[in-house]
């Protein structure tokens, strides 16, 4: 079995895994990072979104071995010194989560949306809804998730 090395949430990590091991399995089973969830097997639900070299990616759709040397950030790596990331904070403030299962992927995808539009003066609700297409939530009806992302936009623009 090959050994894969990557930087996860700022720490260098190595583990042996089969070639067929998906990144999400590698993170959950080899690194114990169970915050990243598996909600489907067809790359649609988005519960497994992590950041790979700064971009949001569904970690069920890339093999661990493809990420040799990559910088991965998972939901566990967002809060710094016990302080939530503004996106996490806005999810809490606007009740953008219920059962919490889609939340890690949703937050990672949401940060990606804001990152993509940071240079623009405003972020339209329509844009947020369209770019959230890759993430399912069965609890919130998206209403408060959209609100939270819109509220995080000015905070993350800085």
């Amino acid at each position, binding site marked *: 079995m090959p050994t894969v090395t990557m930087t996860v949430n700022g720490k260098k990590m190595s583990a042996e895994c089969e070639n067929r091991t998906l990144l999400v399995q590698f993170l959950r089973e080899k690194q114990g990072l169970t*915050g990243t969830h598996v*909600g489907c097997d067809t790359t649609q639900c988005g519960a497994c979104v992590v950041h790979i070299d700064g971009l949001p990616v569904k970690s069920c759709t890339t093999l661990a071995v493809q990420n040799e040397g990559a910088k991965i950030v998972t939901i566990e790596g*967002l809060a710094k010194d016990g302080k*939530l990331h503004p996106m996490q904070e806005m999810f809490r403030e606007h009740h953008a989560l219920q059962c919490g299962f889609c939340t890690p992927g949703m937050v990672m995808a949401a940060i990606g949306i804001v990152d993509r539009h940071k240079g623009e003066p405003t972020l339209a609700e329509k844009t947020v809804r369209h770019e959230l297409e890759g993430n399912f939530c069965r609890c919130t*009806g998206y209403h408060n998730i959209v609100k939270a992302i819109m509220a995080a936009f000015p905070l993350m623009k800085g």
Partner: protein
Amino acid sequence: MANAGIGQAVRRREDFRFLTGTGTYTDDIDRPGQVYAHIVRSPHPHAQIRRIDTAAAERASGVLAVFTHDHLAADGVGGLPCGWLVKGKGDKPMVEPPHPVLATGVVRHIGDPVAIVIAATRVQAADAAELVKIDYQMLPVVTSTAEATRPDAPRLHTDAPRNLCYDWELGDKAAVDAAFARAAHTVTLDLVNNRLVANAMEPRAAIGEYDRATGTHTLYTTSQNPHVIRLLMGAFVLHIPEHKLRVVAPDVGGGFGSKIYHYAEEALVTWAAKKVGRPVKWTADRSESFVSDAQGRDHVTSCALALDKDGKFLALRVKTVANMGGYLSTFAPAIPTYLYATLLAGLYATPAIHCEVQAVFTNTVPVDAYRGAGRPEACYLLERLVEKSARQTGIDRAEIRRRNFIPRAAMPYQTPVALQYDSGDFVANMERALKVVDYAGFAARRADSARRGRLRGIGLSTYIEACGIAPSDVAGSLGARAGLYEVAEIRFHPTGSVTVFTGTHQHGQGHETTFAQLVSEKLGIPIENVEIAHGDTAQIPFGMGTYGSRSIAVGGSAIVKAIDKIVAKGKKIAAHILEVAERDIEFKDGKFQVAGTDKAMSMGEVAFAAYVPHNYPLKELEPGLDETAFYDPKNFTFPNGCHICEVEVDRETGVVDIARFIAIDDFGTVINPMIVEGQVHGGLVQGIGQALVENCVYDGASGQLLTGSYNDYCMPRADDVPSFQVETNESAPCTHNPLGVKGCGEAGTIGAGAAVMNAVVDALATVGVTEIDMPATPHNVWRALKNAKT
């Protein structure tokens, strides 16, 4: 504390763990020495099992064991029990066919479990499962609800002729026939209530563990009701007494009904853990969820409303065929009967109602309660029928409802279908919704849409649901095989903090926050000093769990009852210490006060005295401050409301856009408005999902599930739905529980479908389309438009 009590939008205390990836869902748990199970499932909807060859699988790398039905039978493992006995016409009991944990002889739906492979790793189990050879002899298939009872339909169970589980009725048929005979208007409608898949985002999972030293079994499972699972699995399937069986439902990622039931996999991992001497974990992948989680709805209905010349409803007649799937799931028989026909009065004073329901077996995944459970089906047909009546009689859709609503002054109101409504102001809710939507301005909005080449429609729906399930004696008389009370324990600790043990279970509802608010306010202690515990039978005295919007109405009431016991005991303690008569002690704002004086003890001081009883009435009172209450509701609760939807339809593509959606709901007293609104939003999207995009489809000829993944089963996405305007009306609280609460979990799903479809029909009616079934997908709408044009 002032900003953490009842009525405050307290931010959720459970959020931190979910936002930081530190929640503990079942699949996140690894037990020492754990091995993995893979279930071998039938790829065929109906087939005879001629032979199972497990030899190659047993030899595969990492495999510990492969088990089939014969192994279970040798250990005396029972079948999966059904929790509700429905009696049909003439008191005839329903047909209750065996529901084996692993199939024996015949498989009856795609996904029917046949064998379980246990191996050292997840992939080894999956790889070995492919080596299990099963020789199937195909049998003819029936998946269609409407065709199940045809004489030529293949029979699923030998004891169920015409695949009939029961033929049931409710109401006064003679009165209904007489009313139809004299009606000025008769409005008829044939409807399909499409089958849905619950699709909680967390797939089901289970870990079984056996402790040889103590003989104790533990099951970690994705359940909405761990005590119910312990009872059903322990007593009926594995024959393990409760004191040797612990069931833990940790963080659970959504349920919507699909995690109520006792499933085969729970029994399999619990049983297998003892056989192989290792903890056994099973986690469904999503494809497996599509063929093994109980599904929802699936009714075919003909209904008719009789009206007098002024548009007053005289009688309602409903005939429904309800699909049970291949076997009876835990609560399946109750859904299209006692949670459906009993709601057919809706908000209306219809004097005569008669409903007949035939429940049928088909070669499909079992159907059971899915968010709303029977009540969305009732609301849907009734509100479609009312809207059609408005069109047919020429009476405005709001006016015809106004003329028929049960007035607030008529409460309590006995319906002709068994329920007694206790409260509600139906007129006020609709008038408010009409005002918020600017009903009078609709014509102008429609004209504006038309200028942009789009068809605009508006649809109303009003709903009522029976929640707070249930008075145990009533439920028992209707066939429930369990009590339906709820349990709470309030345990004060010596230095004044509190742990509340509740038999309800949260899987998104925010009980850890809402219940803490309630306890903080009632006991006058800071919310930080209150911890809510749930989901572990080793910790919680007992409980029936969370479904049917019951947690606050029944579970919250149990908490209040336990609080009352705490306060009663606290008064005795305070009276002794303050040297006054018990009747002179008043409890208010967390203080036991001698009436008319400034002599008082805080709640914390009383708790300390109870645990350090140096100055304490030891002769008459036990030390400690820990009270348990069982609350059995006096009646159901009746959340109700009015939803209004406006849609725009693109004539060229058939795409339906929801332009506006307003929900005015009466949930009685609201503890946390933020959480309640969140419940409504989520419910609405599940209702809208059914109306516009979701549909579970089996191929009629092959019986194959055509919508077995998210590629084919359309889940509502963020850009399929709008933002909502939601309000609650707290002016008509529940009259029979101590908080005045009614429950809010299912309301959105119940009302939304009819509002959306009424709006779609209203839009399409302008170009000659009069009826369309759910889901109103672009294809279905486009086809309807095309057919109307030619």
